[in-house]
């Protein structure tokens, strides 16, 4: 049985591309397509951060919380663990709901309103 747990993950814009690649490399299809919602302090583009929030497998959450374990898995997958550990260190990972985490960091979703 898959055990799910909630995580809100906010990554700085500077590392969003490698963060996306890393998640897909580590988690496969379930980790693809992450960090596609832009954030900024004002809610206006350009994005300063990107967010994914929702359920992930508990085992993956454990990896995110344990740099040594993450490095070991990355090495086993043929990835250089150093950039991954750096991404994790630069990111904000919490079990809080997204709105709580955003308020804590002073960030807002960037909404692109269409003209109504």
């Amino acid at each position, binding site marked *: 049985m*898959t055990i*799910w*747990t*909630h*995580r809100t*993950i906010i990554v700085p814009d500077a590392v969003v591309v490698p963060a996306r690649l890393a998640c897909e490399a580590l*988690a496969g*299809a*379930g*980790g*693809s*397509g*992450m960090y*596609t*919602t*832009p954030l900024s302090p004002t809610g206006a*583009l350009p994005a300063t951060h990107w*967010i*994914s*929030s*929702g*359920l*992930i*497998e508990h085992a993956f959450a454990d990896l995110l919380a344990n740099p040594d374990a993450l490095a070991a898995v990355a090495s086993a997958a043929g990835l250089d663990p150093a950039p991954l550990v750096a991404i994790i260190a630069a990111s904000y990972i919490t079990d809080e*709901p*997204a*709105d*709580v985490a955003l308020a804590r960091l002073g960030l807002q*979703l*960037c*909404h*692109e*309103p*269409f*003209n*109504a």
Partner: protein
Amino acid sequence: MSINSLQPTLRGATGKELQFTGDFHAYWDQLGIPPGQFAERMVAWKALPQNAAWIDATEDADAAGVVEGLWRNGEQGVWYDASDLSTMFQDAAGMLPVYMPGQGQVDPPVGLLLDKRLGLARGPELLVNGEFTTDSGWTKNAGWGISGGAAVRVPDATVSTLTQNIALSGGKAYVVTYSISSISAGSVTPRLSGGTTVSGTARVSAGVYTEILFAAAGNTRLELYAAAITNTVIDSISVRELPGNHAYQATTTSRPTLSARYNLLMGTDALATQSVNVVAASYTLCFYGAGSVTLSGAAAGTYSAGSRSITCTAGSLTLTVSGGVNQADLRAANDGVGIPPYQRVVDANTYDTVGFPLYLRFDGVDDNLTIPSSASVFAFLHNGSGSSVHIGFSPSGGAVYHTLLSSGNLGSGTTVGFSVSQDDRTDGRLLNILNNGSGTLHVSQAAVGGISNARRVVSIVNAVGVHELRQGRTIVSPLAVETGSPSQAAASYDLMIGRAPQAGLPLAGRIFGVIIRGGTRGAAQIVAVEKFLSAKARVY
């Protein structure tokens, strides 16, 4: 139909024989009641008085009948039903069915939402010799062979496949079932290949596996992909289409969750001091006991037992408990009609579900489901020039737009579109939105502006049931959008639920069901669909 054939049921329901010597079928026709519903109605009569509730129940049954028949002439569309657990899976490949929320596990993610409008019957078998009874029908690449009624793969110097050409259509879902009787090394993966390869799950142990693969454009064959070291025996494999326009989400964090949670509080049988996040809206606070609750933060006041409306600002609401406070319930003020006034909540994962309608919860961040398109699927949602359509809403006075349905590339800088306020039936064909809040519905095109064009673009989006969480407002928006004949013949856009492809505009809210039908229909059908979805969401 003979009345005598119904007598046992009638006796069971009423305890009496029914004496009627005329044309039974014609008699019920005259009353406007399908004879096939007669026995069920007699049971209902026995169990229920003929009061308003009974009338509502029978009308709901009639509405359900109308919904089931919406696509009987081959119309395109979808029917998603969050109350039907058999249509939802935790993963995108349909391997993990959802479970009932509130029973001690986290509300399950929904990675695959099946379209039930066609009954979920699988199509015919697409493979020849899927049981490997003869050494034929398959292309056996290095290491593969067929013998003894099985496909056998022995280790080889390189990866290799066992393949068979079959007819596949991009965007359609295929159920792949196969049996691995043994595997001592390596892995085997079912794939749809030719064009963009669609991979299933790599298996490393024996067992019978079923998963759903969505074909990509250009896929022409099924293959079993084996790693170089793979040593396995495959007993059988089957590939059958699962007709319908199913929606999925591969990214785990972007999957909506299935929930039935309405009460925002926890430990509600004997409430302790706690804080909850609320939005600027009215809530209903109800509790029993001799103690009191003092509100601070998003609202203020001290209350004793009873039920009252609380007006909150957005933020954290702290409930400080003094004395005994029991059966406490805090929920959006208009959160459903007729649902139980108290929902027992032990913790975030354990709560009452009986009587509380299930819904898909979209988190307003990144949750969405995608319906993969193809040459003909949802052509009615596109115009002749291939531009896209976006349907969403904004809360009253709000600047944040929430996506219900979106397709194509609604890119940054889009400046066209239009909005229609609730219950706007200006020309009798555009929009019909039921809304007990004051939200505004928006329909926008990315490339072609103007009301007339948009009305021409959209053939019909018939109904979407939504509860908007952040505003504490329930919106059931049966969208009755129809125009002339659709002209797009080769649309290849995906349709997204809950988010626009590029601009985001994520939905923070609940979806109880989605019904889309490509085709014209009468007012009676609209009313029935509205009633059906309203009953699902308990909004009237």
